């Protein structure tokens, strides 16, 4: 039983973001981290490995060469091996192109579970897991607050509007998990040392049998404008007043906006 966790290197949530002249994110200008929501997928995979449900855990990322750092950090948390798909033709890849590349690489790695975080911190579309499942022709188990392996099937616990369902599909599957699977572990010093000796492969597009032409120039979409958000109206502050005064101010504010 093998899980491959897909992870993305993203700019740190709090770092400043810049766009290049051709409207792409200037990734060199920002501190890079493992997408925080992918760390939960890593944690889920490692817990399943520790529980004996899974024999091996691999990591897969697509991105420029420095993304090997994110993979090395994941290997420091645990797991067995990592693969980076990197190619100059992939700059500016959109959701579809990313899914196509990951799906093709996952077909080659052929894990029982292809696992992902529920969203990336930068784009927040949550579209890659479902698109990868579609491209691979596999069932999708998404938004799991827990993932389990039950014989030849996988199960997720998934929240609904007012409760939860347990959803099952036969292996192999593509799955995504939420931040409720448990807090991601920190890499230990021993883990960091061990990670240096774990196998890491780098694949080009040609290595997975894709050509740049298969990816429609890395995107079916294009950005035609990038700008700063509109400045919002300044905050009205109420402080150093009694509770009664604060209540009057709030009620007047609500009434002025026809909210009461």
């Amino acid at each position, binding site marked *: 039983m093998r899980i491959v966790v897909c992870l993305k290197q993203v700019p740190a949530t709090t770092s400043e973001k810049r766009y290049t002249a051709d409207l792409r994110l200037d990734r060199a200008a920002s501190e890079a981290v493992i997408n925080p*929501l992918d760390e939960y997928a890593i944690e889920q995979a490692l817990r399943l490995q520790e529980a004996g449900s899974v024999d091996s855990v691999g990591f897969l990322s697509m991105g420029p060469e420095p993304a090997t750092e994110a993979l090395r950090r994941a290997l420091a948390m645990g797991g067995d091996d990592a693969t980076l798909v990197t190619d100059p033709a992939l700059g500016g890849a959109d959701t579809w192109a990313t899914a196509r590349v990951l799906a093709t690489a996952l077909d080659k790695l052929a894990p029982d579970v292809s696992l992902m975080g529920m969203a990336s911190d930068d784009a927040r*579309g949550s*579209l890659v897991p479902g698109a990868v*499942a579609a491209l691979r022709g596999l069932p999708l188990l998404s938004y799991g607050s827990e993932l389990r392996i039950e014989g030849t099937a996988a199960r997720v616990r998934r929240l609904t509007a007012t409760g939860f369902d347990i959803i099952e599909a036969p292996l192999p599957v593509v799955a995504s998990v939420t931040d409720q699977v448990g807090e991601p572990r920190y890499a230990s010093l021993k883990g960091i040392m061990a990670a240096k000796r774990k196998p890491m492969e780098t694949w080009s597009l040609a290595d997975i049998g894709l050509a740049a032409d298969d990816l429609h120039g890395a995107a*079916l*979409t294009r950005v035609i404008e990038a700008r700063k958000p509109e400045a919002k109206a300044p905050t009205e502050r109420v402080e150093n007043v009694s509770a009664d005064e604060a209540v009057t101010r709030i009620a007047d*504010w609500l009434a002025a906006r026809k909210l009461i």
Partner: protein
Amino acid sequence: MANDIAFLAEYADGAPSRSALELAAGAAELAEQSGGEPVALAYGPGAADAAALGAAGAARAVVLGDAAAPAITCAGAAAAALSEIAPMAVLAPATPNGRDLAAALIGLLNVPGFGPVRAVRVEDGRVRSEQATLQGTVITVSEPADGAPQPAVVLVLPSTFTPREGGSGKATVTPAKAGDAGPFGAARVVESHPADAKVANLEEASIIVAGGRGVGSADGFATLEELAAALGGAVGASRAAADAGWVPYQLQIGQTGKVVKPALYVGCGISGAIQHRVGMQTAENVLAINKDPDAPIGEFADLFVVGDLFAIVPKLTAEIRRRKGT
């Protein structure tokens, strides 16, 4: 037709969800711009009655399925219907089900994906999507690349469009062609716990009173519930409050919870960390009550009251009831 605008219409408990009504209005608006027709792709319990979506704006409707199965199991039928309709765009709600279906369509049809968007329009014959990315620090406008196949799949945030009121008319309904559900059909619900949490559906609420770490306990949330009741709204929470077990996770607002856009958001004892902010920053009016004058929420609230929520909220509840005469 190449100018039609399709949308995913999710049904639950026999009625269209709020997102279905919003997207019906949105598809009608875009169809006017493109010169096509708005077409519903309806699924979920009650979807057989999709003719009624005519009043919401739809000209036609295809019923993908009306079973209480996971939404993703309709992906194959949705892809087949879209291949036949060949619309310019398909709008999907930015809910977990809507995202799953949108994602499946991108992969099944090899078409461009956009969003989640806060605005979308048809201009110069192209679908243009406006999106806040990188935690809302940048607004981008995107469109399909030259030669990209249709339809554009567009995830739409809640409250981007306003449902039509007082409409009439019936959409022409056609059932989806029976076909192989494909691999997505293999997912099935093996256990269902529909009422594990007795909570309102936050995505449907127009007023939300949210509590965070500063609420301190499950009992503290009772104070917020009274305010929410007086305002006619629902209670939400930050991840800290859900993690502490004071409220169920279904009430969590933020990056990994619900994304909401109510007319009024009241944050009580919520610091306003970026992960929470991305779930509520498009609320029309933001009121924050917090003891900490330096809480980040003070930088983006419309009205920021520095004070003890337990001193203020009960009095505020009484004052609102007095003014409303309830």
